[in-house]
């Protein structure tokens, strides 16, 4: 069947010693191929796919966490800003309130002072009037007496003396007022 088979072959080792080698080689290889294609390669590829998936999933999770952190940060910043604004408003209000209160107190104090001054003035005026009245009588008497002593007796007419004293005093007073 294979005329060149055997040691006398002109092809030497280029012709199989037994053609079984050829078929056995193919058969063994097909078995290996079958096992690798059916069991080995799918297993490896599945592991690789799972691994890639795991890594991709991890990245996705990290991205999500980062996003959430950014949102939280923004919220905090917003809250902080609004709190600051509120504080500023409160401060402003307090300032204006304080100014109002101060003005009120000032006004009240001014009024009190005015009142005190007025009452003191009135009292002083009254006392002065009283003193002036008392002095007028006294000074009139003293002056008349003094004048009587100087002049002698001519000043018996009380009525006349009193009138002249009054006049004198009025003059004095008006001159004083003019001098002022």
């Amino acid at each position: 069947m294979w005329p060149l088979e055997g040691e006398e072959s002109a092809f030497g080792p280029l012709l199989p010693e037994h053609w079984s080698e050829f078929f056995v080689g193919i058969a063994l290889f097909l078995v290996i191929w079958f096992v690798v294609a059916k069991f080995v390669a799918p297993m490896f590829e599945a592991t690789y796919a799972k691994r890639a998936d795991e890594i991709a999933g991890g990245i996705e999770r990290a991205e999500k966490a980062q996003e959430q952190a950014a949102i939280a940060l923004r919220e905090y910043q917003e809250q902080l800003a609004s709190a600051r604004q509120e504080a500023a408003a409160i401060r402003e209000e307090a300032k204006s309130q304080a100014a109002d209160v101060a003005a009120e107190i000032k006004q009240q104090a001014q009024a009190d002072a005015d009142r005190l001054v007025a009452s003191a003035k009135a009292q002083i005026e009254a006392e002065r009037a009283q003193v002036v009245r008392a002095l007028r009588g006294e000074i009139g008497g003293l002056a008349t007496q003094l004048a009587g002593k100087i002049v002698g007796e001519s000043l018996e007419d009380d009525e006349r003396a009193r009138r002249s004293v009054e006049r004198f005093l009025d003059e004095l007073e008006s001159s004083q007022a003019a001098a002022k």
Partner: protein
Amino acid sequence: MGGFLIPLEGEWVSPGVHSFDSRPLFPGVLPDWVNGHLAQAVIGAALVIGFWLWVSRRQQIVPTKRQFVGEWLYDFVRNNISREALGPDYRKYHPYLLALFSFILVNNLFGEFFVFMFPTFSKIGYAYGLAVASWVLYNAAGIKRDGFGHYMKKMTLPEGVPIYMAWLIIPLEFLSNFIVRPFTLALRLFANLFAGHLVILVFVLGGTYLLTLKDNLFYNFSGGVSILFSFAIFALEIFIGALQAYIFTVLTAQYVHSSISEEH
């Protein structure tokens, strides 16, 4: 007489084609083709299958050491051969290439290791077998994609060839793509391992013969040197065995790629 290193005392038989003859395992009981080399091919296939099943079971996201070794080898073929040559289509053909690479590699390493000391693919029948398998694969892949007529046209008449050259180009391309390819695949693998094993036989058997020769110190010394030198040849053969497995697989991937690609 296989790889058995006992020369007959006083009678030198140089290693040659006869050194590659298979010995029947059970002469008289089973047919002659049930021989040691067939047994080692079967054992090699069993080792390959066992290894891949072992490293692929109970896989985890974070690999164990066992899985890591498997992934390293798997990725070597997947990324450096399958994906490199086939691009995005690699998934479909990757199992074939992985099986091819690991089967050839293990059998080539048999030339230097284990109890066999004989590379299976220095028996050309096995090399022809794998070459035919690859030939069927790349042709089937192309025919499946383009249909028979279209595929034949693509493979025999490259685009851009003027029609008046067709009478020359078509036979040449046919010869190169359908006849030469499988033969070169098989012969390259076979010849490298055959020659390498023959060199090892010469150095080891010759060295042993000279070393054990009586009453000649010079011959004994050169025999020792020869045996020492054979270790370097062993290292070279390990490299060549791995390289040939790689080349066979890469070329198969290239052929498949040329069959399923859009243009030539």
